[in-house]
């Protein structure tokens, strides 16, 4: 088994120049994550992404900024599942965000960005 790396797809900026290909940004080895717990990663443009593994080992990535407080802390929240959907609860005021859609489960008017994430060979 060749070692792999978790990589997130950088967001395509509507105003940026057209990119021909998706950009996959390598972050860390899957083993750096503990199922149920997140880590934060610094993106090339200074942005922050929060990565999680669920119990089955499936990775997720969302923006690290908690929109309710402005703090970059979502990676430090506890994960869980409700109705079969994975979520993370902000460690500050406990609002929950769907890890697949970024939607806030406790306030439909709020959401966080979602990043595609996959394992790539290194």
């Amino acid at each position: 088994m060749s070692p792999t790396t978790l990589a997130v797809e950088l967001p395509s900026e509507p105003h940026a120049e057209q990119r021909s290909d998706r950009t996959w940004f390598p972050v860390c080895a899957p083993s750096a994550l503990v199922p149920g717990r997140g880590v934060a990663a610094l993106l090339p443009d200074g942005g922050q992404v929060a990565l999680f593994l669920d119990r089955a080992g499936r990775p997720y990535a969302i923006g690290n900024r908690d929109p309710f407080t402005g703090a970059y802390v979502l990676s430090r929240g506890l994960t869980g599942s409700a109705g079969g959907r994975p979520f993370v609860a902000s460690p500050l005021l406990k609002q929950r965000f769907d890890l697949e859609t970024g939607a806030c489960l406790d306030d439909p008017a709020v959401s966080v960005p979602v990043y595609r994430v996959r394992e790539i060979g290194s």
Partner: protein
Amino acid sequence: MAATAVPTLVLIGHGMVGQRFLEALADRGVTRRSRVVVLCEEPRPAYDRVQLTSYFSGRTPEDLSLADPGFMARHGIELHLGDPATAIDRATRTVTARSGLVVPYDTLVLATGSYPFVPPVPGADSTGCFVYRTVEDLLAIEEYAKNSRTGTVVGGGLLGLEAAGALKGLGLRTHIVEFQPRLMAVQVDEGGGSALRRTVEEMGLSVHTGVGGKEVVTGADGAVRAMELSDGSRVETDLVIFSAGVRPRDQLARDCGLTVGERGGIGVDERCRTSDPAVYAIGECALAADGRVYGLVAPGYEMAETAAAAIAAGQGAPAVAGDLDGPAFTGADTSTKLKLLGVDVASFGDAHGTTPGCLDVVYADSRSGVYKKLVVGADGALLGGVLVGDAESYGLLRPLTGSVPPVAPEQLVLPAGTGAPAALGPAALPDDAVICNCHNVTKGTIRTAVSEHSCTTVPEVKKCTKAGTGCGSCVKALTTLVNDELAAGGVTVDQGLCGCFPHTRAELYEIVRTRRLTSYAALLDGHGREEARGGDGCETCKPTVGSIIASLAPTVGADGHVLDGEQSALQDTNDHFLANLQRNGSYSVVPRIPGGEITPEKLIVIGEVARDFGLYTKITGGQRIDLFGARVDQLPRIWARLVDAGFESGHAYGKALRTVKSCVGQSWCRYGVQDSVRMAIDLELRYRGLRSPHKLKSAVSGCARECAEARGKDFGVIATSNGWNLYVGGNGGADPRHADLLAQDLSDAELIRLIDRFLMFYIRTADRLERTSAWLERIEGGLGHVRDVVVHDSLGLCDELEALMAAHVTAYRDEWADTLADPERLARFVSFVNAPDAPDPAVRFVPERDQIKPDLVLLAGPALPVRTASDSRARTLEGTAAR
């Protein structure tokens, strides 16, 4: 002569019965049709005199108030406080008050209550002699007791024992002098009296029965020095409380020529009318139609309802209860259940067995101070009884009075498990059985409240029926009935912790303990709700289970360290990083400072660390120092310095023991009677690191002045000259509660053993995030039950609880020292997994008052996506936020 245009009703006296009367008037619309004027001697509106003594356990006079603040205004009632009536002129139908106010009346109601009887003992009016009747009496006693060492209560009845308990609570050596041959002679028989006496004496009070006070001896300053007793003996004392019964306050009635009884009491008929049909008398001042003066609140309430109904009927209003004149008062049940000095005492029905041909069934166990007697008629009907030391069954027995019980009477007095029927609860009662004696509420009414008035909780039923809002002794039976009725109606109350588990925290604790589970996943998959098994759990149950496993770690064989293995994924971020997350994503650091005692060298280290890392420092309420503004990646370096200087984790981040605060105590303070600092340090070091359902706070005060504020803590210790008093269940915060006294005059070893048991029992049975204060209020049997379990070992659990605590104490290790020694754990302390050396650029500070604070402008940053006319704008902001 009936002088007024709008009919005027004057009420003299605003005590418990007076207030109940006003409520009954309002219910019947009388306050809308009449002017209602109340003259009240005391400076405060009606309060719960029955619970008066609870002032000494922390209830404020405001807590005891009976009328909600808007009641008088809402019903247009004119209340004159501190202005007692001084004369009644029945010819002109006017009442004169002390202020000179003259109020004309059409209807007059006397609810003047009673006054304490002070026996004609020489010196009874000396400085230091008190009665025990009003809030003002209590305030005066409290003040005088500050300079007293010994107190004597004359009277060993119900109020006398309450007063004695209060004096003991104030730290005085306490004597009780009772003229009768036993304590509480009116309520209990000889057997009950001796059981009570034994228990009271075990608490350290001195009981003198069969003797009266002969003379109060005073010193040159006129203040009490001693009391000489009728048998020639002498009790040295600084303070005397006369509590030898009460007499009806009927002087106003006598002065205006109303008929009064030979031995006092304003004579009334079955509608509570006096000899003048325009004048009513209710409560303790009245001599009821059955020739008795009732000194209990429940009959007073009945009289209040009776008089209000009669008055409403007189105004032509339809009576509430169907009968044109409303109910009649022809006598009342004088059953009582009390907790005196922590001892349950109850008597009901024919407690003294005066019915011809009646027989006794008696159970007595002088080892545990329990005495129970039932009086049974020749036909097998239960006629009455006396319960001392264990009045649990009162709520069941009293309603059964007058009927043949469903089981043999001996089964009703035996302790559970020794032949007593396990399931004989309120369910066994007939619908017409009275559950709430104070408000005369039957089981049927309570069931109807649930089945027809759609009440689904005990508070709703209380509000709807008034049941349980008097003395509160029926709340347990009430709760059972409400739950039974809800269950019968098919309403199930889901008590589960969260969407993942159908169990309460206490049930999960038992599962983890008995199955020795150390894995959250195993617990979820084996015991979770069907739909949650195999899932990822949730943010509610994960830390809860993490805490349970941590509490039990040494016993179930888990590694107790919160950072290790599967457990690490269960912990809130605070427990994960062993620091407290603050609003901008930075953390704060609190080193343990046991008992608040710290050397200058250590203070300097804290100062240097704060200076070198640029941290904001603040002294906490728990006598330690909080260092704010650390980034995750700085935590190990900060702690390396602190551990090096001899500090260890303060667990400010955990649901665990926080601090044991102390006053400076005997070593320095001229008032101190014990070394409170040493005890605080001992306790803090013993319980440090103990994971619990919520945070635990404690304090130790070196004397009764209580400078450490121990009674605001989960467990508080106050020094006495004989040892330590242990208080439990205190809380500050949004819902303050004064702690209750659990045990008195304990030695060091006794104190620690009792706290061990108390904490472990709490950890075992509390709900998630339930502080000890809420836990004590919630659990069945309340403080009494907890005392039974941890002091009297009623469940046989104490050895186990002590063993659990011993295992915790042995297994304790400093989490921060361990973390620093483990490279794998240290690897987690980075802001970014892909840039371990980069500081988090979002954690920034601005200066304030020579220190730092989070840069809130930065936090506010791109605002929350607000729903505006242009929703696309919101989305753009969101996109920018994440960049």
